[in-house]
Every structure is written in structure tokens, then in C-alpha cells.
């Protein structure tokens, strides 16, 4: 009996949490297609005349037409740069570090680990100062470099841990086949590490897509902003046109969620592997 009661409450709890998690996504999508007067008048109604004009309203919001599209392009540039920088720099280093002595590998790990705990607030003002000095403000790609470098520690640690467990037989077989060391890395190790690289890459992608603390400082002009920063001004401008605001929110929020659903296997694996270093 007692066990049944416990089971009931456990079930109730998990369903309750699931509903709470889904509420924003449900309403963002619902309101994105609702007329503003309906959002105020009958917000919970599920049967209503859809207003697809919200999406064009959102698209044409901001100072120029298609500003939101520019924000997406900026986010794309920023995230792509961050991914390239973090993976190209950290993955080979994480691999070759396993050949150092254990003591040296450990020393490298600890040094890199200390990079994960530096508070962003300590970095943004000097970044602004330096970027300003070199005339690099309002350039999404150059801002993406900063995001990429800040993602290096996590990328390095997760990949290093993965490579430490990599079966040595594979490497030795490659050597016996006469492959050079760099060929072993490129032809044998990399193809077998795709899953792990995707896991780690997604962590970087989610973070760089959503963060605004660095971008709000380095990308201040509206035409250079990524979606995470652009939306802030957009939502403030649109208190009278809620429908368009929600259409904009859905455009910003739904793509990463869909990407996650497709790749969820990798994401959960990446976190289980030690995403707590992020």
C-alpha cells in the first residue's frame, strides 16, 4: 500500500514537472499563430483563427526589413566560428596529449580545467577594451573566436578523457600498417571519434547560440547582433504586437530544440561523459 502511494506521488511528480517544462514551448508556438487580440482575450483557447501574419510581422520587425534574418545569419556565423576554433584547436591537442607522461597529461588537464571556472564577468570589460582598440567590435565572426576559445577547455577535457580510453590496439595496428602518426590520427582515430566530437560540439553550439553576456558587449550595433541579443530589443519594441513577438521567439527557440531531438542521443551522452566541466 505504502509503496503504491509512493509510486503514485513519483508518477504525479514527474508528470507535473514534464508539464511545467513544456508550458513555454507550447504557449510560444500557440501564441505565434494567434492574433494579438486573441492572446489578450482568450489566451488558453485552442480553437481560433490562426494569424500567420505574425511571422511576417516578426520578420519585418526591427530597424530594417528582415532584421531577424540578419540576426540568424550573425548567430550562424558566430556559432560556426566558435565550433571551428574550439574543435580545430582542442581535438588534435587532446589526442596527442595522451602520449605525454601521465604526470604531464595531468598537469595539462589541471591547467586547462582552471580555464573553465573563470567568471565571464571578469572577461567582458577587457574584451570590450581590446576589441574596441583593434576595431573589431560588431564583427560576429571575430566575436565567435572569443566564444570558440572559451569553449576550448571543455572540448579539450572531454576529448582528452575519450582519447585516454581509446583502444591502443587500433593505433598499433595502424603503425604496423606503416601509417605515419599524423595519418593514424586523421585516418583511424578521427573517423572513430565522430560521435564524441558531435556530443562535445553540441554543448558548444547550445551555449554559443544562447549566450548573450559576451555578445551584448562586443556586438552592440543592431545589424551585427546575434538572435540572442537582438530578441531583447525586439521584445521591448513589440509589447503592442505580442503575436509577432511570439512568432520571433518561436523562430529563435524551436530550431535548437529540433536539432536536439534529432541528436539527443549524443547530447545526453556528452553530458553523462562529464559535461559538468562546462
Amino acid at each position, binding site marked *: 500500500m505504502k509503496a503504491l502511494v*509512493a509510486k503514485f506521488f513519483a508518477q504525479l511528480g514527474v508528470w507535473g514537472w514534464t508539464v511545467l517544462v513544456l508550458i513555454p514551448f507550447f504557449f510560444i508556438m500557440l501564441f505565434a499563430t494567434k492574433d494579438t487580440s486573441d492572446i489578450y482575450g482568450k489566451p488558453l483557447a485552442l480553437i481560433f483563427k490562426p494569424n500567420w501574419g505574425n511571422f511576417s510581422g516578426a520578420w519585418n520587425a526591427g530597424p530594417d526589413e528582415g532584421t531577424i534574418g540578419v540576426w540568424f545569419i550573425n548567430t550562424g556565423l558566430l556559432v560556426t566560428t566558435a565550433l571551428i576554433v574550439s574543435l580545430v584547436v582542442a581535438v588534435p*591537442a587532446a589526442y596527442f596529449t595522451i602520449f605525454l607522461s601521465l604526470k604531464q597529461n595531468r598537469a595539462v588537464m589541471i591547467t586547462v580545467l582552471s580555464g573553465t*571556472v573563470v567568471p*565571464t564577468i*571578469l572577461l567582458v*570589460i*577587457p574584451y570590450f577594451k581590446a576589441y574596441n582598440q583593434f576595431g573589431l567590435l560588431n564583427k560576429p565572426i571575430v566575436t565567435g573566436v572569443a566564444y570558440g576559445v572559451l569553449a576550448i577547455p571543455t572540448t579539450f577535457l572531454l576529448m582528452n578523457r575519450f582519447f585516454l580510453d581509446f583502444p591502443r590496439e587500433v593505433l598499433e595496428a595502424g603503425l604496423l600498417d606503416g601509417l605515419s602518426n599524423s595519418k593514424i590520427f586523421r585516418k583511424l582515430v578521427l573517423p572513430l571519434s565522430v560521435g564524441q566530437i558531435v556530443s562535445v560540439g553540441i554543448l558548444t553550439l547550445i551555449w554559443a547560440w544562447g549566450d548573450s553576456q559576451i555578445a551584448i558587449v562586443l556586438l552592440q550595433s543592431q545589424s551585427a547582433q546575434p538572435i540572442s*541579443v537582438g530578441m531583447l530589443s525586439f521584445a521591448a519594441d513589440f509589447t503592442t504586437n505580442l503575436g509577432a513577438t511570439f512568432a520571433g521567439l518561436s523562430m529563435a527557440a524551436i530550431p535548437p530544440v529540433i536539432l*536536439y*531531438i534529432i541528436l539527443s542521443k549524443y547530447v545526453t551522452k556528452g553530458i553523462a561523459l562529464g559535461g559538468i566541466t562546462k
Partner: protein
Amino acid sequence: MSVKNESPSKEVSTSITQGRTLFSPKKKARIGLNAINVRSARITLIPVFVLLFVFLALPMINSIQLSVSRWGGLGPLEPVGFDNYKFLFSDAQMRYSSRITIFYAFSVAFLVVAIATLLAAAVSANVRGHKAMKIIWFFPGIAPPTAVAIFWSSSFQPESGVVNVILGKLGLGNAYAWLASSDTALYPVIFVGVWSAVGFAFLVILGAVEQIPVSLREAAVVDGANVRQQFTKITLPLIRPILMTIFTLQIIWTFNGFTVVWAMTNGGPSDSTSILPILAYKEAFRYGRFGTAAAMAVVTGIFLMIVGTIGIRLSRSEQQ
């Protein structure tokens, strides 16, 4: 170098990443595999350390330098000694912000760990639908914080906001204007902070729960332990180190968390939700007082270093 690698001592290899061994003693690495790769390691590590130095170490030094200067955003720094710090320690807003930042970070971290642990316990007991829930519960961690924060702040509006509409339908009243009052604005922000962070903590804690050997729980069942006792006597003590780690990290992340608060309240009304990162941002980029802002950042950094060190110490001692 390679000689060392060929005879890995047991104790070193286990100390590296919690029991993962670098080389198993049976399969000794070949000299050919190592000698050249050690050089590659040094070469590939150069860009890692150069970039980390330029983007992490230099800015930190620069922040400290700024914190003892006056700088309006242009021109050279003007050294002012510890004036910025003296100002901070006498400033009422700074004291208030420090207090709410600590309150905000600790309450979010505590609630996140508590909820995530309960959810992990439920899922590991195979409640119905747990496979889908594992995926769904991480949605809040995926969606851009700006987007969800804007949604939630609109939903806390009186009468028209979704939260108030639902409360109204339940007969609990629909005119709560939490975000408009300095006394209550922090609570919706805490709620959203928790809401968006639980999924991640849940996945990590679930990973720890699933590593507990089934035999331990079976033994407890044989001894007549009920579900709650299994949880409090077996699961909880075994995952305590990871809970401590997550709690510490969550404090640091929430302490640093800029986006959720900024998107929900801009720090207002009248700076009642201006946690330190927001206060520093405003100080620098609204009022152009970069020196005081840098001093705030340095104080925050020192505080977080202390929290981090204590947290790591505690979770280490739990592990032993």
C-alpha cells in the same frame, strides 16, 4: 618520455581520471607510437595555451588593472589606487546586490539539486514514460535563455500573462504583478533560473544513480527496505559527492548568470534584481564607469574562487 610510458605505475594511472587507466599493463605502448607523438603533443598544445593565455589570463590581469583605475571607455587609464574598492564597500546598492546575488545563487542551486535528485530517483525507479521524459526535461537547457526568459516574463504579467490566467482559472486570483514590485521580482527570476537548469543537473545525477550497482539495492530489498529507505539509505549517500559538485558548479553558474535576469527584468524594478553581473554591466556600459565595474568583477571573481575551493574540498572529502 617513452620509457616512462612503457612502465606505467599503477598508482599514477589510477589517479588520473577516477580509475580510468591510461595504458593497461599488458599492452605496452610502442616506442614508435610515442616518441614522435610527444613532439606532436607539444606542437598542438601551443595554440591551446596561447589562446587561453590571450583570452583568459590577460583579460583577468587587465580587469585587475582596470579595477584600480578610472576609465570612461576611451583614452588611457588613470590610476586611482583602491578608490573603486573603497567606493564599493561603502555603496548601499553594492551591498544590496551582493546580498541578493548570494541569495539568488544559493536558492537556485539548492532547488536545482533537490528537484533534479528527486527526478533522477523517480526515473531510476522506472516510472512510466521515463525514456521520453529524459529527453523532454532537457528542453529548457537547449532553448536560448533569452527566448524562454522573455516568454516567462510576459507570462508573469498580471491578468494577461499565462501564469496569471492559469491561476485565475484555478480560482486563485489573476492579478499578481510579481515583476512590477521590488519586493517580489526576484522570485519569478529564481523560478526561471531553476526551471532552465534542472534538466542538466538531472542528467548528471541520473548518470551517478545509474552507476550504483543493482546488487546493492537488491540486498536492501532482501533486508526489507522500502522505496524511501532505499533512496535515503543507499542512493543518497552514494551520490553525495556528485551532488556536492553539482551544487557548487550551479552556484558559480547562477552567480555568473546574466542572460536570464537581464532578459526578464533588466535588473529592475529600481535595481531590485540587479545581481552583480548586471550591476557591473550597467556600471560599465550604461554609466561608463569601467573602473568600478572591473572592481565589482574582481570582487565577484574572488568570491567565486572561495566558493569553488570550498565546494571542491567538500566533495573531495565526501568521496573518501
